């Protein structure tokens, strides 16, 4: 069965789209075993990918080049990173930066001199460069101003880092973009054949992100070695996994979510199917032990940090307490035939963040094969419109799928307060106040709720037997809204909100997508952007083997040297 068949199967008890696609629920999402960072490493381990560093050529400040080679299922890839130092004043999390301390690309194929010269010329230019179909991903970022030099100095002096100084952020370098899918001439996502190891959505980007994180580790350890060959040490076992890759994310995720209902439906749909699978599981000692292990791991992770709530989300202190509550609740469910369903039902009354944290924990019990998930995530966005449909058919679809729009107050003055636009500086997505700036044909058409509302009025006034093609001849401006109605993206394709509304909070859609990627440690910096980490706890590439476990997420902050001695 296909994904849509399952999502519409009345015998499968799924959460309602009203709940799941509510902004507060989306904005409470957490990484799960289905998140792309984890599924990528599972695939790499299962399929015996071989990754190795083939070149590291840096000066003592970390400027130079690092290259990794990946042998994956008969395909050869290279991740080529160019590193530099720039003045701290040039560091910015915004996409508009003109200089970075690391720029890199993931390419498919052998890396001959011509390819390397090509990358050396084009990759550091980022958006100003011109790539071709050899290149799969283009990325860039900066070192952490606070941590990089400190970490090099610590290792160079033969010491490990002091947790209180570097443990709260959890990264060495921070990325600001992962471009792919045809941007700047790169290979299109649809250009990966079905047996390609990077066939699943965002797998190429997450391979690149994992190697970006590896680059940050290698850079620090190598520089320490150059600075003090006699005394320098590498990161010890705990620190070797603790650092992830930082990332900052702005408004670009909002247009993506509004333009890709099929993908959004698939991302949410696979998670909801997995949750439904787990909720119907009967009790067993093995399952109970597994869930308790994950609850314990999550508690140790959040309690090893300290931090108060940071609007609009809970911080480590609150999450640590919440996990204790989850543990107590689950421990009391000893007589339940289906304790996992009981735990979920308990969580529904604990607020969206605890609810989604429980969903994340429960999903560890799901055993849906990765190949099935990958196939479900690869959606068909090229479904042709059906010109035989009539106005009456559209109105019926409206009633079936979009009645929720009535709750958005789309006639109020606040409903079209904002319009979305790309600035001329690196095409940074922004939103502008309509009362101050007129769009003048520059609006990015993600005002889906408003468009559907306008369409409904014209459909109501039209002859119900009119064919859609004829209707469109009279109302060509409704093309986007009609496509939305005609293509059945699935029950979870539409966030239940109007992104042009005065009170729209971009953080909700951003967090949903970042959680699906596998990012965590959400730190909102304003209503419009946030910082996160990914791959915290993940194996280094040299450690990857068929036995690499999938429980690397949620690592504990390493202890101080003195504390280790006491514990030992």
């Amino acid at each position: 069965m296909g994904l849509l068949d399952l999502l519409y199967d009345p015998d499968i008890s799924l959460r309602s789209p009203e709940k799941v696609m509510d902004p507060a629920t989306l904005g409470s999402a957490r990484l799960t075993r289905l998140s792309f960072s984890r599924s990528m490493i599972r695939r790499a381990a299962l399929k015996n990918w071989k990754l190795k560093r083939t070149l590291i050529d840096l000066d003592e400040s970390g400027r130079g080049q690092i290259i990794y080679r990946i042998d994956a299922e008969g395909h050869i890839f290279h991740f080529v990173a160019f590193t530099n130092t720039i003045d701290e004043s040039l560091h910015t999390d915004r996409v508009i930066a003109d200089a970075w301390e690391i720029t890199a690309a993931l390419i498919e194929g052998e890396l001959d001199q011509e390819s390397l010269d090509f990358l050396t010329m084009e990759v550091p230019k980022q958006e100003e460069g011109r790539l071709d179909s050899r290149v799969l991903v283009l990325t860039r970022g900066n070192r952490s101003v606070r941590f990089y030099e400190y970490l090099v100095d610590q290792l160079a002096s033969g010491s490990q880092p002091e947790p209180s100084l570097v443990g709260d952020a959890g990264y060495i370098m921070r990325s600001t973009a992962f471009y792919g899918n045809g941007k700047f001439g790169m290979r299109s996502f649809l250009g990966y054949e079905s047996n390609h190891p990077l066939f699943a959505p965002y797998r190429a980007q997450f391979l690149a992100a994992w190697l970006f994180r590896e680059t940050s580790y290698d850079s620090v350890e190598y520089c320490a070695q150059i600075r003090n060959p006699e005394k320098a040490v590498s990161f010890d076992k705990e620190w070797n996994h603790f650092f992830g890759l930082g990332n900052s994310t702005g408004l670009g995720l909002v247009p993506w979510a509004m333009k890709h209902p099929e993908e959004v439906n698939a991302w949410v749909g696979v998670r909801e199917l997995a949750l439904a699978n787990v909720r119907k599981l009967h009790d067993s000692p093995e399952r109970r032990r597994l869930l308790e292990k994950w609850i314990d791991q999550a508690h140790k992770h959040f309690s090893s940090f300290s931090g108060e709530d940071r609007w609009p989300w809970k911080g480590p202190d609150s999450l640590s307490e919440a996990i204790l509550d989850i543990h107590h609740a689950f421990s009391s469910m000893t007589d339940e035939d289906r304790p996992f369903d009981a735990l979920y039902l308990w969580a529904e009354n604990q607020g969206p963040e605890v609810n989604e944290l429980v969903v994340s924990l429960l999903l560890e019990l799901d055993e849906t094969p990765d190949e099935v998930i990958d196939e479900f995530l690869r959606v068909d966005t090229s479904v042709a419109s059906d010109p035989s449909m009539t106005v009456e058919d559209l109105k019926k679809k409206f009633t079936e799928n979009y009645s929720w729009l009535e709750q958005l107050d789309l006639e109020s003055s606040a409903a079209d307060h904002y319009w979305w636009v790309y600035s001329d500086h690196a095409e940074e997505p922004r939103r502008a106040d309509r009362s101050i700036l007129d769009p003048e044909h520059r609006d990015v058409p993600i005002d889906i709720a408003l468009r559907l509302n306008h369409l409904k009025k014209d459909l109501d006034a039209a002859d119900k037997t009119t064919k859609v093609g004829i209707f469109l001849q009279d109302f060509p401006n409704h093309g986007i809204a009609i496509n939305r109605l005609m293509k059945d993206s699935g029950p979870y394709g539409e966030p239940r909100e109007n992104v042009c509304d005065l009170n729209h909070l971009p953080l909700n859609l951003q967090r949903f997508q970042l959680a699906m990627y596998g990012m965590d440690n959400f730190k909102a910096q304003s209503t419009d952007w946030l910082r996160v980490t990914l791959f915290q706890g993940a194996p280094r590439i040299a450690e990857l083997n068929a036995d690499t476990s999938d429980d690397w997420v949620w690592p504990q902050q390493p202890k101080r040297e003195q504390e280790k001695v006491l514990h030992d």
Partner: protein
Amino acid sequence: MTSKEISVAPREIHDLIQRASRVKGCEASVAERIASKITFCEINYGGGINSWLQLVADDENCLTETFKSVQVLDSIPSKDSLDFSWNPSIPFAFIAQSLNALQSYGFTWECNPEAPTGDVQIECVCLNKLDSEKIASNNKMNKAFSEGLQVDKDDWENLVGISSRFLLSEKILDDADSAVYE
């Protein structure tokens, strides 16, 4: 690829035509459909981008009118045999995708003049219903996705220049207090 060509991805054609069509006054839905048509034609027949550029060079404001004049092909004809004519003629790029879609509903088509590329001006199209449906091959599309597409470099740079006017000045946005990161 020659020095006069540049390798581009299908989505780039779509994005640039969409933006450039907005710059030339099209509403978002209309620009989206034009972008879809031009991209399809560029991949399958060539000449799509050039036809768009020629059209706006002749008349800055004719995109929407041209689009409206070809919408008739986006419905399934009620008769088994039908002729459509345009005066003035229209670029093949604006009808190639619709004609291919009609093939999947069992219609064959002939153009006058015959249409090897998207920039050929079409005056008349004849549709005839057959018993069997014809599914168009996706080979060219697949190749474009995996290897990119070679297009005329001058045309591309011209299109990049027009589409860049879709973007709004950062200074104007800053002056209008549009939210920023820092």
